[in-house]
């Protein structure tokens, strides 16, 4: 399933950035995709809804290790972790 998670996260981010999914690569950063702080909060909401998980993200501390948003790959890894936890 991990690939399916990556595909879905990329699709959510692409939708937010108004880009083609192909333009959202694993090493893209949100900044490079033109997603600002409001776009980030909206993306996280979409991720929570899509995977039925709760993402520990506080906009006052975006660099917090609770949920790494430094790249698309980091977000995918974090979501994979949360999905795995939710299954337990």
């Amino acid at each position, binding site marked *: 399933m991990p690939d399916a998670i990556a595909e879905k996260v990329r699709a959510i981010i692409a939708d937010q950035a108004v880009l083609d999914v192909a333009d959202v690569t694993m090493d893209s950063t949100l900044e490079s995709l033109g997603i600002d*702080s*409001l776009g980030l*909060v909206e993306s*996280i*909401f979409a991720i929570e809804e899509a995977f039925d998980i*709760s993402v520990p*993200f*506080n*906009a*006052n*501390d975006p660099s917090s290790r609770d949920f790494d948003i430094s790249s698309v790959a980091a977000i995918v890894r974090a979501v994979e972790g949360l999905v795995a936890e939710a299954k337990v």
Partner: protein
Amino acid sequence: MKRVVITGAGTVNALAHDVVGTLAAFREGRCGIGELDIRDKDRLTIRIGGQVKQWDAETHFNRQQIVLYDKFTQFTLIAAREAVAQSGLNFDGHLGYEAGVVLGTAAGGVNTWDENYRTVYEEGKNRVHPFVVPKLMNNAAASHLSMEFNLKGPSFTVATACASSNHAMGQAFHMVRSGMSRAMLAGGSESMLCFGGIKAWEGLRVMSRDACRPFSLNRNGMVQGEGAAVFVFEELEHAKKRGADILAEIVGFAMTSDASDIVMPSKQGAARAIAGALRDGHLNPEDVCYINAHGTGTAANDKTECAAVADVFGQHADRLMISSTKSMHGHLIGGTGAVELLACIMALRDGVIAPTIGYEEPDPECALDVVPNVAREARVDVALSNAFAFGGLNAVLALRRYGSAAHPK
């Protein structure tokens, strides 16, 4: 142009149900924020707030009144009764025609919306109480004050999110200064500590789960509060003639719009409002000893506000004191500027600066004297009160100690 003074003050908030108790809490640096006691709290991720405790509407109002008074109106009425009693004014005669009320609230009767949505959506009922609309409308509190005190002049409610009270008090100030009104009730109120109110705020992910720590490096967001504060603004000559006790003089007010972002603050917009209030009050930057900060405890507000203060005051920024009492009573959103004006009055009148509590670690981006954790004694001639709202709408008031030497330029 008339001079405008404050001759009465009243409040209800998480620290106390009156001014004396609130100022005592400010002096002690006491925190009124705690675990929320509301319905369905277990479905919230944010479970703290500056909730008004031991609130029993039935001790203040009869049954007919309670069906018309949302909590934001109840808080306003009790605050206004205290303010009017202190002022000694009676609006029953001709003065009623020369007096009005301007209040701020961001969202009005949120508890009433919340309860009645439950009735129709959750409980599936097809009928709600007949007075839902007059109870929840944003101007309900202003209208009930006008009725209780016979205020027949200009009266309305202002909604500019977190700056609502400052905008409201600014309007009232202008009306007395221009001679349009002899006296005005002014202030604001908010009560959105209910399931729907907090759930909406959770979405923005700017709320702290543990504490409001303005200017501290480890701050992690804002904490909501509730309550009201109301003041009597009066023309100086009118107040003097009747020998009224003058709490402070209001000397300046300015408002600006960032015209840039719906939630992110702007240093330029804030700085223009602060500089505008000084200009309007014919004040020099060096006259200002104390600023009651907007100081929400979010990463973005606090550093932007400090940068704006540094811009306006230059080197004097390092000599003035700036504190955020939201650390104690929480963020009252549309009512916040009104409760915070009490800290300015305390600074001017009592020479005591309310602290910023919960301060743990210096932030190089907030390198001002934020009066950490402990109140301080200081002689203050001029104080400012900042409010910077979502939507980029800024409003700053300037107050002067009545009888101080800092005269107009």
